[in-house]
């Protein structure tokens, strides 16, 4: 065990898997010598050389399209998109190609690859360095979507993602890249891409969150516990899709109340899906309207960022209201 932040844990996972499996290649903008703008791939270029840690021209469509070709060949590409906000030039290759390859070819071709990209707000990035586009990919059949909240999960989930037989979007919450620290085992270990984690037990209200917002949810849970004696059960999804619905439903059946927190705009965000699934599975157990605490339905602002994000100050009243409903 050593203490690591998320950047270090992800770097460690990449390094271990590249040593273990020479099919793994990393490609993207600035991933080479400089180790990525967030330094996540730092040192890999020196250890594995420019055949496996590749600086590409400035074209996300090229990065993903070429990675698909590599995956079809039999490699395990791990392309990096510098910011999730810049994934859209590659959107066609991801949703029309990577997501559909196995299905459309009757299972002949598969497209195992992990698209790593920093996601979310909290670094004063404004419109284009802050967005959380997960629901666009969850809506697309054939993609898995992961978003770890801490170093331990990040390493175990990334190793599983690289070994998975299907394309995985691996969203890294940049707000806690360095802030989230924790003990991480030295060697390999995997966390299945199917299990959410109850990170705080409680009987009054269920809170579903992931990535950076998990910490806001936990802070609110402690706040309402101290102030109101409300005990919130907090679930960290870890893997967004496929969703570990059983864990959520089991919890909601006990609490009868649920609040989902996410940074993405409210409308057609993943929160809507989670709450609808809950009402499909546990309608008669619901004692209060399911609640969403999310980014507003506007582009992501700069100066007013903390007023935009669903932080503790907005989660706390939602928990109290829902618990007391």
């Amino acid at each position: 065990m050593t203490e690591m932040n998320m950047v270090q844990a992800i770097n460690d996972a990449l390094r271990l898997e590249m040593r273990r499996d020479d099919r793994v290649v990393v490609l993207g903008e600035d991933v080479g010598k400089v180790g990525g703008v967030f330094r996540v791939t730092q040192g890999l270029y020196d250890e594995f050389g420019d055949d496996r840690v590749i600086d590409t021209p400035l074209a996300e469509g090229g990065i993903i399209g070429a990675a698909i070709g590599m995956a079809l060949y039999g490699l395990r590409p791990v392309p990096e998109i510098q910011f999730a906000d810049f994934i859209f030039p590659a959107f066609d290759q991801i949703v029309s190609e990577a997501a559909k390859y196995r299905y459309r070819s009757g299972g002949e071709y598969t497209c195992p690859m992990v698209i790593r990209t920093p996601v979310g707000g909290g670094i004063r990035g404004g419109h284009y360095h802050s967005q959380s586009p997960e629901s666009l990919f969850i809506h697309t059949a054939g993609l898995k979507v992961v978003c770890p909240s801490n170093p331990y999960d990040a390493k175990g989930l990334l190793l599983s993602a690289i070994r998975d037989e299907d394309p995985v979007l691996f969203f890294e919450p940049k707000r806690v890249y360095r802030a989230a620290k924790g003990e991480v085992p030295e060697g390999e270990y995997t966390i299945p891409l199917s299990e959410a984690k109850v990170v705080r037990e409680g009987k009054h209200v269920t809170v579903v969150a992931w990535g950076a917002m998990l910490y806001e949810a936990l802070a609110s849970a402690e706040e309402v516990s101290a102030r109101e004696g409300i005990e919130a059960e907090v679930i960290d999804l870890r893997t967004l899709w496929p969703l570990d619905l059983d864990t959520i439903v089991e919890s909601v059946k006990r609490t009868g109340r649920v609040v989902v927190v996410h940074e993405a705009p409210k409308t057609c965000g993943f929160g809507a899906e989670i709450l609808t699934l809950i009402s499909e599975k546990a309608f008669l157990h619901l004692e209060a309207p399911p609640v969403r605490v999310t980014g507003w339905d506007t582009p992501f602002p700069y100066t007013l960022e903390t007023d935009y994000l669903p932080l503790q100050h907005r989660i706390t009243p939602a928990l109290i209201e829902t618990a007391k409903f």
Partner: protein
Amino acid sequence: MQVETNVKAIHGGAGIRTPERSLEGIASVIRADGTADPAQDPRLPLALVKKLYVAMVRTRVIDERLVTLQRQGRIGFHIGSLGEEACILASAAAMRDQDWIFPCYREFGALLWRGMPLQAYVDNMFGNANDPAKGRQMPDHYTGKPYKFGSVSSPIGTQMTQAVGFAWAAKLKKDDLVTSAYFGEGATSSNEFHTAMNFAGVFKTPTVMLCRNNGWAISVPSEKQTATRTFAEKGVAYGVPAVRCDGNDVLAVYKTARAAVEFAAAGGGPTLIEMMTYRLSGHSTSDDPRAYRVEDEVTHWRKADPILRLRKHLETLGAISDEEDAKLRADVDAELKACIEVAEATPRPALSTLFDDVFAEKPKYLIEQERECLEGPRPQAHH
């Protein structure tokens, strides 16, 4: 300065609507009288040339029958290669056995050349239970991994970047293989052409970019697609060698494509080949070209039919007879007829296949949806 002179040369060009003009200065092998220009002749074994002829005729006959089949409402759609058989077959033949082909959607001839049984292709046209694509895509969206042949998808251009990535992977693994990507001249306007060419150039991937310039992108003439005189010129922007060839001349296409394959295999990197040809049919069975192009143009190109051209060449070699030709067509007809009967008698894919292959393992929510679907009512016939 290099670039400027170039640009002048381009602005000098008057567009390529007149085929004569467009072919000016382009290497052809088979001359008007059917003989091969000795200076250009790749001197292929006669057996190979015959094999190409047979494959081209086979492709043509299948095309014609499938159009009829669609008119009869027995298949939903067909997109063919009428007039483009030389581009497609000769460039496929130029690839080595270990090389991989990434198709556009007009290359079923190349797929059959690579060894897919006709039955499997016809099953794809019917989307039945034996379709390798499991009836999930439209007709002519075939998949041919066993034949080192890609999976067709409709979005224009995506296969180019993938072909480059595949070749790049092989290069990184020191695996001696070359990839080719087929696309139309219209696809050169897509994002994918740009990234594929740029990545191919920068990483010197062993890729042959096969542009079928058939004059049209549905109703848009090739000269509206670009301000350049040729599409080959676009190679300059990527440091990728580019050549044009007479796309209706089997020997010219083979020679050009083979040189590009050998260049790539030798570590020279990618080549862009513009094959000058013509789409004799509508874009697909959904299209009526009379709405946008003049008959004269088509008539002109009918005379340049690649099959007639090769047949004339074979005649000069005394290597083809009317009887042979007739038998060849009759055989394909019979073979196809039989395949169609089998395909029509084959049931549609099992309902449960709808939920397979979304992922390697079926997640719980899909198992639930599958159960809901299988246990639920069936649609009325009229739908």
